[in-house]
């Protein structure tokens, strides 16, 4: 509840007419952004616990063997995600908040140019890698090592349910394209 309450309180503040329309002072806008960021972080703990309860068999939960850290990447909208950029193997879990089955094209910032994606049934999916545009405002102002975006189509994600994917950098990509620096977590 403390985690959820911080988000509840923040969303209450966000109902103010200045927050809705953007007519607040700049420093207030920064404070709004900070509050939202802290509340998402707080709720991350809740979603992580729930996903582990759903995905790890009850018999294994005590041992903690298969318990995973489910992390949000809040800067995914500007093509930045420390987990996918710096790990050769990572998994992606998609939760569908809608009341119907959806299929969605997914884009993940990555440092290599060749990846293999396996779905929860063990089937290897078609992938495509596209370079991140090299424009001035994109390079200078993003703290990210991602040179590419990995694209795939996630199909039939159940209504109010989830589907997970295992993503692995290919051997050749691992040798030739090591990230130059660790992405900043800010």
């Amino acid at each position: 509840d403390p985690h959820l309450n911080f988000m509840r309180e923040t969303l209450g503040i966000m109902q103010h007419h200045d927050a809705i329309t953007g007519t607040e002072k700049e420093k207030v806008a920064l404070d709004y952004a900070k509050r939202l960021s802290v509340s998402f972080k707080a709720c991350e703990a809740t979603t992580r616990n729930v996903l582990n309860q759903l995905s790890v068999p009850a018999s294994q939960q005590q041992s903690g063997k298969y318990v995973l850290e489910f992390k949000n990447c809040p800067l995914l909208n500007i093509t930045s995600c420390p987990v996918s950029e710096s790990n050769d193997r990572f998994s992606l879990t998609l939760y569908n908040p809608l009341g119907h089955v959806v299929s969605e094209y997914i884009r993940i910032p990555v440092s290599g140019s060749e990846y293999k994606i396996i779905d929860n049934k063990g089937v290897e999916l078609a992938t495509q890698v596209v370079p991140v545009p090299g424009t001035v405002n994109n390079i200078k102002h993003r703290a990210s090592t991602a040179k590419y975006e990995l694209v795939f189509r996630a199909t039939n994600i159940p209504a109010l349910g989830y589907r997970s994917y295992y993503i692995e950098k290919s051997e050749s990509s691992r040798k030739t394209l090591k990230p130059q620096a660790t992405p900043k977590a800010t």
Partner: protein
Amino acid sequence: SSVTFIGNENIKLGFDTNGFLSEVTADGLTRLVTQDFLFYEGAVGNNAEFLNRSSGAYIFRPNENKIDFSSDHVEIEVYKGDLVEEVHQKFNDWISQVVRVYKKDSFAEFEWLVGPIPIDDNIGKEVITRFSSDIESDGVFYTDSNGREMIKRKLNHRDTWDVKINEEVAGNYYPITTKIDLEDDTARMAILTDRAQGGSSLKDGSLELMVHRRLLRDDAFGVGEALNETEYGEGLIARGKHHLFFGLSKDREGVSLKSLERLVQLEKLLPTWKFFSNVENYTAEEWR
């Protein structure tokens, strides 16, 4: 040296030799559709006079409706694969865009990146993206009301009183929270937004949306500071997406473009939540 195409069997986009979007083919229709980034110069007024206030956080008021093109030539790079085809466009040092069509979609995605807006010339700027087509919309366009009912708008007109529009741009701007569209008897064009933006249709067949603004004067409505956003030194960069739908305005085998827009709107505004896990120590089999 010739038109560059990206697309799939549902929708195809053509880009002219200057790098601008020039045509769209969908539903068997090929029409001239152009897209460009422009900016209005923000009005600098005398805040003591109510009708002469500066453009600011509360009000959008271009200086004598003056509008400038961001570029007359766009550098482009084209990437085509099995899942997505993309054109990366660079309009200038502070505006760029990726236009993409995924293999199974029947709409195009425009991911724009604008900023930091330069102000060395001491002019506040309000940047728009404008899609122009030959659709004969007769001054009528539709804007949404918080994702619910679409509301009919007519240029220089109000339904319940005789209006005299003193500001022909700002006086025709409306809030767009998710969608703006227009159509004639044959064709239809709609744009979905990923956030609330100001928008309008100032000419037949044309839709515009304001994507970013940087202003140097307070508009004296209460905030007490200019919408300049210099906290991080040189102004903010905004990045977002528009989804362009184009096709027949009538039903296609019982399915209308409008119903597709409605479904995509829901899926774009409420996409899947993404959770990443480090599985360096697991093989794919162990992970399963």
